[in-house]
């Protein structure tokens, strides 16, 4: 009991010091700078704040929850409602939403009481709350659900593709996968069906570098832009390409293939995630570490309960208890930028 109390007390002291040290930053921060620093949520003694990429506290922990920054704003929860904080730590869009999504192309999907709409970075509701569900914008289109059917809007809020799909994914490389009565097909930005293969697609993924993962009864493969099976379906699972390689599974083990479908890393992981910034999170047995793209070898000595992709030179990792984890950040060598806390 005593050591724990002491630890808490020490953290409080640290916190108090940080508050004092950083009180000035809010004023000095000039928080409308165009190149806002990338910030990362951390939890200390149950309160959420943000660190910079160096691991130093940038926004003093005082939120009930905090999400990743996107386009200079991070969704934060205060009094049970979500708003957005700027990189200086000021709340820029006051807490008023039940759900607040990430910003992309200048807009974020938010939900007040009932329906989803979109706000801009000033907090103005530029597309009225009217959707059952709403996905982030990409390529000037956002998938929205109206009366149980998915369609697409543009940034003026105009419904450019009528809601007629039972499911829909976001646009990438000019295509969006949508589910119609006879399986998944791909549409273009005007809603025309442009890829509708002769075989039935059970699941369709996003295009990256001209290839999209798809599943048939034979397993997972990759489609090219003409709708042909560039890599024939034969895997148990397949993820979109990233940095030239894609995660696929065979016989219960995950590896990486190149765009010809040849193994770059033979199946050897219990799980694997896409490459990001030259590193890919992989699970050996129960723990995650990172695979280095340059060597295609495990690139660090540490391993973690859970790990997320690298983003801006650091990666979020989780240790401790699965249901109440400590959250930390590591650099590319696996050294702690922020030692896991909760």
């Amino acid at each position, binding site marked *: 009991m005593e050591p724990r109390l002491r630890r808490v007390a020490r953290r409080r002291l640290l916190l108090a010091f940080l508050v004092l040290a950083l009180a000035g930053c809010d004023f000095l921060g000039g928080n409308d700078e165009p190149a806002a620093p990338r910030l990362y949520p951390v939890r200390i003694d149950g309160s959420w704040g943000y660190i910079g990429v160096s691991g130093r506290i940038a926004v003093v922990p005082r939120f009930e929850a905090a999400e990743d920054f996107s386009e200079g704003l991070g969704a934060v929860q205060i009094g049970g409602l979500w708003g957005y904080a700027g990189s200086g730590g000021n709340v820029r869009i006051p807490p008023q939403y039940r759900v607040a999504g990430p910003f992309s192309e200048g807009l974020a999907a938010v939900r007040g009481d009932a329906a989803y709409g979109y706000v801009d970075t000033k907090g103005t509701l530029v597309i009225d709350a009217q959707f059952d569900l709403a996905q982030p914008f990409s390529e000037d289109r956002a998938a929205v659900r109206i009366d149980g059917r998915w369609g697409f809007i543009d940034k003026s809020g105009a419904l450019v593709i009528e809601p007629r799909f039972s499911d829909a994914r976001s646009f990438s490389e000019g295509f969006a996968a949508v589910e119609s009565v006879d399986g998944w097909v791909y549409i273009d930005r005007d809603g025309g069906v442009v890829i509708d293969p002769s075989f039935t697609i059970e699941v369709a993924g996003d295009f990256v570098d001209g290839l999209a993962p798809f599943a048939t009864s034979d397993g997972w493969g990759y489609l090219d832009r003409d709708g042909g099976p560039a890599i024939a379906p034969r895997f148990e699972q397949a993820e979109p390409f990233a940095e030239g390689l894609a995660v696929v599974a065979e016989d219960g083990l995950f590896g990486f293939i190149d765009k010809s479908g040849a193994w770059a890393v033979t199946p050897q992981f219990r799980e694997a995630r896409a490459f990001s910034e030259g590193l890919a999170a992989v699970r050996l047995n129960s*723990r995650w570490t990172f695979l280095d793209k340059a060597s295609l070898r*495990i690139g660090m000595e540490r391993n973690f309960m859970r790990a997320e992709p690298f983003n801006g030179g650091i990666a979020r990792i989780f240790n401790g208890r699965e249901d109440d984890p400590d959250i930390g950040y590591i650099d590319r060598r696996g050294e702690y930028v922020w030692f896991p806390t909760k």
Partner: protein
Amino acid sequence: MKRLFSRLALFLGCASLLFGAGGCDFLTGEDQADATGLFPVLLDGRWGYINSLGRMVIEPQFYAAEAFSDDLAHVRTGSGHGFIDPDGDFVIEPRFEDARSFSDGLAAVRMDGRWGYLNRSGTFEINPQFTSAHAFSEGRAFVRTLDYDWEYIDTSGRIVRDATTPDLDEVDEPAFSDGLALVRHGDTYGYIDRSGKLVIPLQYSAARAFADRRAAVKISDRWGYIDDKKSTAISPQFISAASFSDDRAPVRKDGNQWGYIDRSGSLAIAAQFDEAMPFSEGRAPVMVDEKWGYIDPSGAYIIEPQFDEAMPFKDGAARVRINVGERQTYGYIDRDGKFLWYPTD
């Protein structure tokens, strides 16, 4: 803990006294020049390293410590297994669940239940993807795959086998020597070459690895030796037989005692020991009446049997164990049988 400090204080005190009194003799490089090896010793429950002059050069601090190989030593701390350099500094942080010493520039380490191989700079050369892994020898290592098959791999991690390679079972000495490795398939033993080719068929009921171009094999209840030309070099006649080194091999004769034969198979040292191990650096551990001593190539004792365990000589010293009641103490003797480090624990 208190004892550790007092012992350390004593040691440091002695060391400073020595330096103070002996002065330059000790400092003028004799220490370094003559110190050809470092040897792990146990003091107050922690392992450190002495040099070949018996002086503690890396303070006792490790839970476990192995001999140096490729200039790095595998040690264990409270936080895991890692590798230190001869200065005692960690070159590879102790973050692994388990590890084996370096050989051929690679060391097997375990991460999250899986074995892979690190190079000397501490980065993975072969990803952790095996359920078991042995040390490399002659560019090959015996590993167990995720499907629990035993295989030999090359230094790039690729499985080495050809059409003649049998399904492999575990063996005690999974290592290449003289270009050959002992393999077992069920109850029969044979030998493969570095390409995996079965060059000596599965025909022995028991066998040992090649050493000095000879291998002990068991043919119809008796042990003999074959050479690397696959012909019988010494006909099967012994109850048991161990490896050749320094042109001597320990064999167990009909009287159930061990002696040593030369390369022609004639008895060079009379059968007189209860146990006997191969020679290394001109010395061999032998056991009589439950105690181990060491002999020279003529069969004469350099140190009478008195140890509970005796390891082979390496870099001019051999580790010995003496049990003191429940405690196990470890020390080193030099080639003359003198204590380099009197057994401690």
